[in-house]
């Protein structure tokens, strides 16, 4: 009898172990694979995200200077394309081939931290808090995990952008763009009436960040459940629903993705969008005639904080070089040089006094840069890193259904919270 069971039991064990049920942790381990102290030399890999070909010269300069400063080092630079970067990092992490130093935004870093794949850089770098801004470091500190899991690299936030030509044409003053959601609705009404509905001002539905800006807590203090189904959150969605019902937004908002309003703005179909400090430069590539007509103004409420950083793989075999390289790329000098090339903002305290960021060159892009830089002081990470792709999609679907009036805002939020909690605790 026992022998008859041996086969199936063995097969089950083999299947289970092959199906990723054993908690396989190819990169994990309590301690780094190499010592933090020691001479900086040898080969080290650095992975960035979509910097080629636009910033090839800059990166080669930074790497060349590093190799010169630390003779005997050899940096292998890998740059991954913009699309499917998360899939690439996921496959590297699962396959145990994560580069020594890797560009990970905090939401990519968190799942790797949960699997103990990234180094707590605070443990090996005592000067961290003295050199980097608190907001940047906080983005790499995760609920339930002690430590800081990345060097903040560059920061950005959202700025409001307005099409001054359309505003003037349809009875609005681009010098006095809306400064709150209520003013936005008011001006959107004027634009709709004057343009006969041909051009609209608003073109985005509320996201979790909008709820957070309205003072709604998204996640419970202990991070164990979502709690954004409050009357205040429903009131925010109801405001958007009323605007949608009045025809102040195109129907596209129901099925648009995050960047949908920027697309409509670039096409000249709507007169307002939000974007990073470098948005006008991006528009200049897609629609050169639109770029000079854009005016910028600060975000309505608490601006979102977007952080990019460099994390160090815990499995690196050359920890001294990996740490030195991550510090070098994120140093004030190198970050400033990078921020002079593109409108992003350094995460180092020493860069804060650089007049380049606080003085406009008189162009609209320069004005936008200054607004973004000023906004950074009060910017916050609005969406918790616990929110996954599936959750985001589900929340957007429910908000869209609420906008159409198919379900109430409260029902949409209750359903979204229930599903998110199910996914969070699975």
């Amino acid at each position, binding site marked *: 009898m026992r022998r008859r069971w041996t086969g199936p039991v063995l097969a089950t064990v083999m299947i289970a172990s092959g199906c990723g*049920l054993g908690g396989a942790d190819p990169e994990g381990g309590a301690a780094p694979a190499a010592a933090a102290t020691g001479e900086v030399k040898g080969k080290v890999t650095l992975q960035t995200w979509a910097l080629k070909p636009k910033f090839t010269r800059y990166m080669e300069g930074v790497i060349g200077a590093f190799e010169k400063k630390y003779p005997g080092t050899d940096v292998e630079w890998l740059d991954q394309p913009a699309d499917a970067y998360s899939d690439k990092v996921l496959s590297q992490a699962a396959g145990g081939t994560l580069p020594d130093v890797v560009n990970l935004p905090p939401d990519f870093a968190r799942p790797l931290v949960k699997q103990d794949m990234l180094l707590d850089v605070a443990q090996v770098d005592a000067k961290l808090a003295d050199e980097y801004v608190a907001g940047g470091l906080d983005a790499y500190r995760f609920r339930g995990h002690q430590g800081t899991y990345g060097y903040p690299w560059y920061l950005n936030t959202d700025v409001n952008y307005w099409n001054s030509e359309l505003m003037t044409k349809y009875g609005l003053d681009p010098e006095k763009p809306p400064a709150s959601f209520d003013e936005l609705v008011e001006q959107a009404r004027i634009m709709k009436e004057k343009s006969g509905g041909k051009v609209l001002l608003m073109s985005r539905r509320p996201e979790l960040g909008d709820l957070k800006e309205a003072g709604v807590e998204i996640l419970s203090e202990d991070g164990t459940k979502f709690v954004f189904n409050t009357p205040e959150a429903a009131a925010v969605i109801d405001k958007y629903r009323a605007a949608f019902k009045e025809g102040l937004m195109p129907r596209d908002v*129901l099925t648009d993705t995050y960047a949908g309003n920027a697309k409509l703005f670039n096409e000249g179909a709507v007169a307002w969008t939000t974007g990073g400090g470098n948005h006008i430069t991006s528009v200049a590539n897609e629609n050169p005639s639109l770029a000079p007509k854009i005016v910028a103004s600060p975000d309505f409420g608490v601006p979102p904080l977007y952080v990019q950083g460099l994390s160090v793989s815990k499995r690196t075999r050359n920890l001294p070089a990996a740490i030195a390289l991550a510090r070098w790329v994120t140093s004030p000098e190198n970050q400033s040089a990078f921020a002079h090339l593109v409108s992003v903002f350094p995460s180092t305290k020493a860069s804060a006094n650089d007049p380049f960021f606080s003085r406009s060159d008189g162009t609209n892009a320069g004005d936008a840069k200054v607004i973004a830089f000023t906004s950074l002081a009060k910017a916050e990470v609005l969406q918790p890193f616990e929110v996954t792709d599936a959750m985001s999609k589900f929340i957007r679907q429910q908000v869209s259904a609420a906008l159409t009036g198919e379900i109430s805002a409260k029902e949409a939020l209750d359903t979204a919270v229930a599903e998110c909690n199910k996914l969070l605790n699975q």
Partner: protein
Amino acid sequence: MAPAALWLLVFNVWPSINTIVLAFTNSRPLGGGRFTGLDNFARVLSDAQLADALLNSIVFMLVCLPLLTILPLLLAILVEKKIPGIAFFRTAFYTPVVASAVVVALIWSWALNDRGLVNGFAQWLGVIAEPIPFLTERWLLVFSAISLTVWKGLGYYMIIYLSALGNVRRELHEAAAVDGAGPVRRFRSVTIPGVRNTMLLVSVMVAVSALRVFSELFILSNGTGGPGGRAQSVVMLIQMYSRGFYGHFGYASALSIVLFVITVGPMLLLLRLNRKAA
């Protein structure tokens, strides 16, 4: 033989077994998971989005099945004739097949959106006052995707029928004509029995691909599945739950098994019906 068996084992048998095992776990892309018994299947039973997705997939199949079984046959009969310039029409009908599904769906989404070609033209003609929400209303979205699938599939199944029609003996048509049978009668009594097996093959292919629809609905809805996600297909749900760092492999696998079961059902039914008719 050994390489073929190895191929089958690695790319068919193993993934299938893996999917079944994962369906009983809460496995994630990183860090593994644990057995959760029938939890994922209990969730399947109470998933409102899955109910919507199943209904969409079934409607998709029920509409596509007759259209893509009959229309390509009629088209094949039309272009089978050896008349000057017919090659042009064969090529024209086949062109959508060689175009990428993604590119075609993108072109359709430009044509069907509120400011697109179709609404713009209809408004210009004064036929409609407000744009028709082809891409933002559940059933309009599903039927837009069905239209796209039928348009794209016509040429493909037409080619299959063309080769089948070549095997229907000409003498049978001639004999039927001599006996006084008109074109409709000859179609019913000679052509259809002659291509019955091909029709069955086409029906099975259409049913399976319709139940597994993804690209058309995904691109036309911009990946959102429409307001409330009510225009999603089952494959879109599987994609939604399986991707990213936090992909829910367990639940996605349970959904895959559900899809497999409902795909096999109509296939067996069609085979059984054919056996009876034969």
